[in-house]
């Protein structure tokens, strides 16, 4: 029986969107924490640590996210760690986001004038103290607009989770489409739902960019 696309079907999509948002938020928090470590290693005063960070960033930036998802999905199960799609997706998105955040924040850290490093070094700060009290507070301003911008990428990319069978918005869309056979309506609606979340974020990132640029 072919169903109509009514309120119930729409609400089903809305409830699936919860998972898209949860996944995005989780990937943002975990990826952000790991990304901060990557960024710090990337500018660390010890060369091998920097190489490690460069290798991490390069590897994940030149791997399709879909491959990461598959590797985590099959890999975690192989090593007896987890057979749960949600866990695999979260781990994959975390690695992916950490590489991009690491690179974005490296740029922000290095954009802080050299004199700030020298001044804080002259005061006898260690590397981590310099970061915590002098460099990071200043680079947050530079880093915020591209970070918000990357959030949009992250939210859109959670759609790939549907490919390994995690029930988020895009997966729900396929399910509803199979019931109603109205692809234009369903995928159009779902596209609009993503847009409703992503576009305000994009506008915010642009506003922040303009605001912070004026302040310089």
């Amino acid at each position: 029986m072919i169903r109509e696309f009514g309120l119930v079907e729409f609400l089903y999509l809305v409830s699936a969107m919860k998972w898209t948002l949860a996944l995005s938020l989780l990937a943002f928090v975990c990826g952000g924490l790991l990304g901060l470590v990557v960024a710090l290693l990337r500018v660390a005063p010890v060369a091998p640590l920097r190489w490690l960070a460069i290798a991490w960033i390069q590897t994940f930036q030149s791997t399709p996210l879909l491959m990461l998802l598959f590797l985590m999905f099959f890999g975690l199960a192989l090593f007896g760690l987890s057979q749960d799609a949600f866990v695999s997706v979260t781990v994959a998105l975390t690695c992916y986001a950490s590489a991009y955040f690491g690179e974005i924040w490296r740029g922000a850290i290095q954009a802080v004038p050299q004199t700030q490093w020298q001044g804080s070094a002259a005061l006898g700060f260690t590397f981590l103290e310099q970061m915590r009290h002098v460099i990071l507070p200043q680079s947050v301003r530079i880093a915020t607009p591209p970070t918000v911008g990357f959030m949009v990428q992250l939210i859109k990319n959670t759609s790939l989770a549907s490919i390994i069978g995690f029930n988020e918005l895009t997966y729900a869309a396929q399910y509803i489409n199979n019931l109603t056979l109205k692809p234009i309506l369903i995928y159009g609606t779902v596209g609009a739902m993503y847009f409703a979340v992503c576009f305000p974020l994009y506008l915010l990132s642009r506003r922040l960019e303009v605001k912070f640029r004026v302040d310089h």
Partner: protein
Amino acid sequence: MDGRPTPMDYTFQFSSVWVAMPRLLDGARLTILLSITTIVIGLFIGIVCALARTSGSRWLRWPAATYVEVIRNSPFLVQLFLIYFGLPSLGIRLDPIHAALIGMSVNCGAYATEIVRSGIDAIPRGQLEAARALGFPVPAIVRHVILFPALRAVFPALASQFILVMLGSAVISTISVEELTGVAHSVETENFRPFEVYLVVTGIYVTLAFALKVTFAGVDRFLFQTRGRA
């Protein structure tokens, strides 16, 4: 107990992946072919829309801006489904490869538009005024004063976007295009070694990404660095 493998009982086996290597490389060839076609079409769309986006007419600016924002703020996968499953219900039948090519090009075009536009915005106004004052014909202004310097300025950003296009093409396997990921999926369902297959395929993607990076660096040097900087 529940038949779940523990870390100890799994032995990696790559031999069945090596056997499938010719097929995987065929898939990689299709990935390259589709990516290059997308890059060419996407760059063309990007240049046209960037000119529209920076033009004096609001009737050109608005449609271009809408196109860019709609595409950039919705997932590629949904766009792909809309094209592949949606267009046939309007009476337009597409085979997977053409649907993928349209989806990728439309997507790539939106990103290219934004990048080229930022290059155009960065051109000092004085340059344009000088060209006009010297009586350059419009096509010459567009070509030599707007596009060439704009593309030169943003070429590195375009190159990274194009690498993302190649990596993103993995997603088109979902509409059954037999590119690298599509072939990987077929191989994996035959030999039951998904992890090994995807590990090798990831290696192929990393190699392709590196090759593209080197190629674009060469193109940049050849096109933009040797012909004296303005």
